[in-house]
C-alpha cells in the first residue's frame, strides 16, 4: 500500500512539473530572448543561456517607445482602480451581509445578474456615457468606468457572511459605528479575501486590453498592454526587432511579478497565523 502511494505521489509530481514547465516556458523564452541578439533568438534548438548578453535591448526599447509613461499610466490607474473597487465593494458587501432592508436579496440578484453579462456588451453604453462626461481618451475615464466590480463584490460578500453575528454585535455594544466595524473588524477579519481580490484585481486591470484600447487614443495616454501591442505592430521587420519587443514585454511584466511575489508572501503569512489562531 505504502509503496503504491509513493509511486502515485511521484507520478503526480512529475506530471505537475511538466505542466508547470509548459506554462512558464513562454515566460522563460521571453526573459531569455530579451537579452539575446536578434540572430540568436531564432536559432534552433533554443538555448537557455545566451551566448552574449545584450542589455542594450532594454535601452533601445525605452528609446523606441514611451514604455515608462505607459507603465506609469497602467500602474497608477490600476492602483486607484483596485483601491476604489475594494473600497466600494466592502461597503456594498457590508450592507448586503449586515443590514436587513427591503429588497436586499433582489439587489444581490441584480448585482449577480450583471456578472453574467459579457463585458463586451457594456462597452458601447459605457463609451456613450463617458463621451457625455467628456472622458473619452482620458485615464480618468478609464478609472471611473472601473469603479465597481461585481466579482469583488461577490467575493467579499461571500467572505463577510462568515463573520459571526455576535462579533458585530459585540462591536456595536462596545460603541463602534458601522463604519468602524467595517474597517476595523470585518475587513481585517477577512484579510485573505481582501488580498485575493487585490491580487486578482491588480492582474486583471494591469493586463486589461480591449476596453482601454477602445477608450484611449493618444500614444502618451496608452496603458502598457495596449502600448506594447501597438509597439510590436509598428516595429515591422519582425526578426530583427524581436529582442526589443521582448525587452519591452519584460518591462511590462515585471511590475506584475513584483506584486505577485509581495502578495504571495502575505498569503503564506496570513494562512499560517490564522491556523495558529484557530
Amino acid at each position, binding site marked *: 500500500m505504502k509503496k503504491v502511494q509513493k509511486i502515485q505521489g511521484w507520478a503526480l509530481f512529475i506530471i505537475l512539473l511538466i505542466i508547470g514547465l509548459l506554462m512558464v516556458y513562454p515566460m522563460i523564452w521571453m526573459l531569455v530572448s530579451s537579452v539575446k541578439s536578434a540572430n540568436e533568438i531564432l536559432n534552433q534548438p533554443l538555448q537557455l543561456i545566451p551566448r552574449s548578453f545584450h542589455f542594450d535591448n532594454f535601452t533601445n526599447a525605452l528609446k523606441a517607445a514611451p514604455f515608462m509613461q505607459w507603465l506609469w499610466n497602467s500602474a497608477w490607474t490600476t492602483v486607484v482602480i483596485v483601491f476604489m473597487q475594494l473600497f466600494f465593494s466592502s461597503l456594498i458587501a457590508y450592507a448586503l451581509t449586515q443590514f436587513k432592508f427591503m429588497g436586499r436579496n433582489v439587489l444581490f440578484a441584480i448585482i449577480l445578474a450583471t456578472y453574467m453579462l459579457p463585458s463586451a456588451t457594456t462597452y458601447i453604453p459605457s463609451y456613450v456615457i463617458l463621451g457625455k462626461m467628456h472622458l473619452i481618451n482620458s485615464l480618468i475615464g478609464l478609472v471611473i468606468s472601473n469603479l465597481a466590480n461585481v466579482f469583488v463584490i461577490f467575493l467579499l460578500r461571500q467572505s463577510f457572511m462568515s463573520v459571526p453575528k455576535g462579533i458585530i*454585535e459585540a*462591536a456595536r*455594544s462596545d460603541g463602534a459605528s458601522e463604519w468602524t466595524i467595517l474597517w476595523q473588524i470585518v475587513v481585517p477579519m477577512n*484579510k485573505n479575501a481582501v488580498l485575493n481580490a487585490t491580487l486578482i484585481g491588480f492582474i486583471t486591470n494591469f493586463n486589461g486590453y480591449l476596453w482601454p484600447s477602445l477608450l484611449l487614443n493618444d500614444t502618451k495616454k496608452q496603458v502598457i498592454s495596449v502600448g506594447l501591442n501597438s509597439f510590436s505592430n509598428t516595429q515591422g521587420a519582425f526578426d530583427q526587432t524581436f529582442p526589443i519587443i521582448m525587452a519591452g514585454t519584460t518591462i511590462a511584466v515585471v511590475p506584475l511579478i513584483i506584486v505577485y511575489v509581495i502578495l504571495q508572501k502575505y498569503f503564506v503569512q496570513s494562512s499560517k497565523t490564522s491556523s495558529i489562531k484557530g
Partner: protein
Amino acid sequence: MDLIELKRINKQYENKEKVIEDFDLNIKKGDFTVFLGPSGCGKSTLLRMIAGLEKISAGELLINGELQNDLPPKERNIAMVFQNYALYPHMSVEKNMGFGLKMRGIDKQIIKQKVTDAAKILNLTDYLDKFPGNLSGGQQQRVALGRAIVRESEIYLMDEPLSNLDAKLRAVMREEIVTLHKQMAATTIYVTHDQTEAMTMADRIVILNHGDIQQIGTPKEVYQRPQNMFVASFIGIPPMNLIPLKNHDGKYYLENAELSLKDDLGNQPLVFGIRPEDAFVDNAAPLKMKVTYIEDMGADRYVHGLVNGTKFTLRDGSNNDYQVDQEIGVGFTAQQVSFFDQVSTNRVEANLWK
C-alpha cells in the same frame, strides 16, 4: 425611580409568533438580577432588546427615566458579555479589552492602565499579547468579562457567560463575578438556565417561561414559596415533589391519608408539593412509596420512588439500606408543604394543622 424600566415590552421576530408579550419589569440600581428559564424562553431576546441589539416591537424601555427604544447600542451606557464570548479574533487580548474604551475616545495611556488593572483582577496579565484563538475557553471567557468591566458602565448585561465552562471553572467564575459585582456595585442582569448560578449569585431572580414572568423574588423566596407549579418543578435539584390531592366531601386526601387544612378552600382541586429535603422515611406514616433507585451524591443521598405511580424523591439522612421495590413510609414537615391549584397551577395559600 428604578434604573431600568421595561413597560409592556413586546417582541415579534419577522412573521413569527410573539416571543415576548406585554413584559413588565423594574430593576433597581445596583441589583444583581438573574433571568432564569429554560432554553428558548426569550432570555437572550430580552437582554438584546435592553442592549439595543434587537428592535423592540412594542412597549417602552426606560433607563434613568429616559426612553431608549430608538437609541443605537453605542448611545446606551451598557456593557454586554455574550453567550459565545464574541471576541475579536484579529486583536490581541489587550486590544480586545481596550476596544470599547478606544471607541469612546479615551486616552491611550488611560486605556492601558484600565486594561492592566482588569487583567490583574481576572488573572490575564500573562496573556495580554496573545490572540483569542490561543486561549482556553475559560481564558476567553475572562477576556470577554474583562472587555465588559473595563468599560465601567452603569449597566452590565451577561448572557450565559459561563455556559461553555466546565463545572469547576464555573464555580470559580461565579464567585469572581459576584465579587466583581460587589466591588463595582454596577447594575447587572445575568441570563442563565443554570439554577445553581441563579441561586448563588442573584439578589433577585426573574423566572421566565415562554416569555412570561413566572415569579420574581430572592433566591430564598422562589425556592421556598414557588408561585406556581412551573417554578416548583423548575427550581431545586431534584425538584419539588408534586402529587394531586383527592377531594371527597370537602376533605382532602393525600393518597389514603386525610390532610387537615387550616383554611377552608371549598372544593378547589389542589396539588400537594413537598421538597425532597422536607420529606423523610417514616415507616409509621400512611403515605407509602415504592423505591425505584437510590442516588448517592456523597454528601446527600436521595431515595427515588413511586407514590401510587407518581414520581417522588426524598433526601435520606440515615445510613439505612433500601432495596429496590421495597415499600417505605414517607413523612414530611408540615410547615414546609406547598399547595397549588390543579387548574391554574398557581400557588394556593393554605396550611396544615401540624
